[in-house]
């Protein structure tokens, strides 16, 4: 069985190999993600509470209680999720890693990038953030980095585009 490891092996966590310096995204992304979701959940909790008060039945409180628990869970989860996002620039490719429970790691060669998108919404703009998305000819490439400080996103975009140009290959 392959359980017995031969000599050439990267030890430890496959998603965090040694010798790679991961850049993290801005902590403000926590705010950017929590504000919309907590607003929705909070509103639903308020609606639930109003309905519970109006009907007077004790069991109806299950709904607002559920939304409050959901909000607490989000408060716990989102910072961890944001902290798990990382990217690393290597000489020839960009690595992006995401997720805690379901982890993914994507390697995008610079020469394969077809175009780059920088997106900023109203909330992220207020926080000075931007998200960068890399597109290859494959629809399966899910290579986006949310929560980059705007100037980092701009710099990264230009830098990646320049590197892509230098290494551009056909399909």
């Amino acid at each position, binding site marked *: 069985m392959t359980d017995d490891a031969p000599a050439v092996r990267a030890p430890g966590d496959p998603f965090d190999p040694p010798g790679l310096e991961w850049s993290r995204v801005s902590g403000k992304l926590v705010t950017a993600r929590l504000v919309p979701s907590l607003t929705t959940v909070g509103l639903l909790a308020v609606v639930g509470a109003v309905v519970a008060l109006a009907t007077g039945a004790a069991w109806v409180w299950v709904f607002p209680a559920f939304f409050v628990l959901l909000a607490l869970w989000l408060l716990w989860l989102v910072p961890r999720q944001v902290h798990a996002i990382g990217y690393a620039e290597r000489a020839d*490719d960009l690595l992006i890693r995401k997720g805690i*429970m379901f982890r993914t790691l994507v390697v995008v060669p610079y020469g394969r990038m077809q175009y780059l998108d920088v997106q900023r919404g109203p909330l992220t703009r207020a926080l000075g953030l931007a998200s960068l998305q890399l597109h290859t000819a494959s629809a399966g490439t899910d290579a986006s980095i949310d929560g980059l400080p705007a100037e980092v996103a701009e710099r990264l975009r230009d830098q990646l585009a320049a590197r892509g140009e230098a290494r551009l290959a056909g399909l």
Partner: protein
Amino acid sequence: MSDGLPVPAPGGATAPSSLAWQRVHPVTPLVKGWLVLVVVVLGLLRSTAEQGDGDGARFALHHLAWVLLGIAAIVVVAGTYSWLAWRVTAYAIDPDAVHMRSGILFKQHRKARLDRIQAIEVRQPLAARLFGLAEVKVEVAGGDGSGVSIGYLTERTAQELRADLLARAAGLGAPSSGGKQPVAAPADGTDPKHAPDAVTSAAGPGRAPTLHATEAPEQPLFEVPSGRLVASTFLTVEAWVLVLVVAGAVVAAAAARTPAVLFSFVPVLIGLGSALFGRFNRSFAFRAATSPDGIRLRHGLTETRAQTIPPGRVQAVELVQPFLWRRFGWWRVHVNVAGYGREANGKGPTTVLLPVGSRAEATTALWLVLPDLGTADPLALLGEALDGSGPSDAFTAAPRRSRWLDPVGWRRNGYAVTARAVLARSGRVRRRLVVVPHERTQSLGLEQGPLQRRLGLASFVLHSTPGSVHPEVPHLDARDARVLLDEQSVRAREARSQDLSERWLQPPGARA
């Protein structure tokens, strides 16, 4: 050749005047719009008939003049519009690109670069066949609907246009010879990508020096007999579901003692039946050949298609053996070609390289795409890839602990790497092998769910262009997956830097 219409062309949309525009065949609007015309006329007749309070026929006869006048009006309006549209529809070819313009009010000028051509198809729907017309579709890798459809043309013009486009795309500015077939037998290691030597050295039979006469010679490889196609169509899950549905409908009707029950099954029957017939229809009379221009595929019953996929355009190959086909040793081969993606998902796979064939034919199909598998003994490797399981010298297999996640097929999950490609093997009931050339790797990924994490496993994913082939190796040992990811990104980079398939017949020195 001007449109003769006072519509101001938007800035930048006007074509360079040096292009020699050519119109499509005048019958084009009729071929494209005959179905619409029939539906409109039938609808009109029906609504007229219904107005007559049950006595429709007499009402229609009474007002026959009006009905005919209405139809005539529709024909005149549609005819005028079609004629105007036909006047502005034209195509042109210059050394770098093929141009197509169309539209009366909203003008469209589309340009497809020849060095970006992914595939060329000569398509003949039933209506076009009646008129002896064909459409040339040029696929470029620009995403949804980015291809250029030139149609309709006479069959002869279409063939010439295809040959012309392929010759130009291959980098033969003014070809004088068709070029001799450089590859003769599987596994001889000749790569059409390096065919320039073969073409310049092996001077083919002298042809007319015009571009129009150069249809590269081809060598037939395999064809699918109708009998086998029918048998294989019935040996699918869909066919069995269809039989069960019919049986269920009959039983239900017998139990309810009314045939009306049968009608409720009609939608399901139509759905399943058309899916099955569609597959049969597309794959009918399937023939494959090889030529210096690439892979030639011809197929279709009502609508015939002749596809040409230039060398190096195939992004990934998949060999599948559904369970019911195993007794007969049949395989199906799919490919991913950039530009075909969405169509492949919607109207069924247009990127079938072999609808059903023996194992030898399937390996031939794979050889078509990847003449050099990059290993000393390709047949042994393929044997292991097609029916083997467990780890071996060539294959790194998923570890035993992955049986918790894939209890049936875990032994088959595994990968092998050669000098030219990655082979991903999976599936025990439905056997599957995906081959991706190193230089066609877009991006790579690792995925790990919570259960995989506990077991120390990870899935390796190779991102290919959109299509029916999704290369992945599930549930590998996490360390194996990581090593594969690192090594594969290096191999892909090296292969990419040596890839010369953009103008595949042009000598490397002549490249810009």
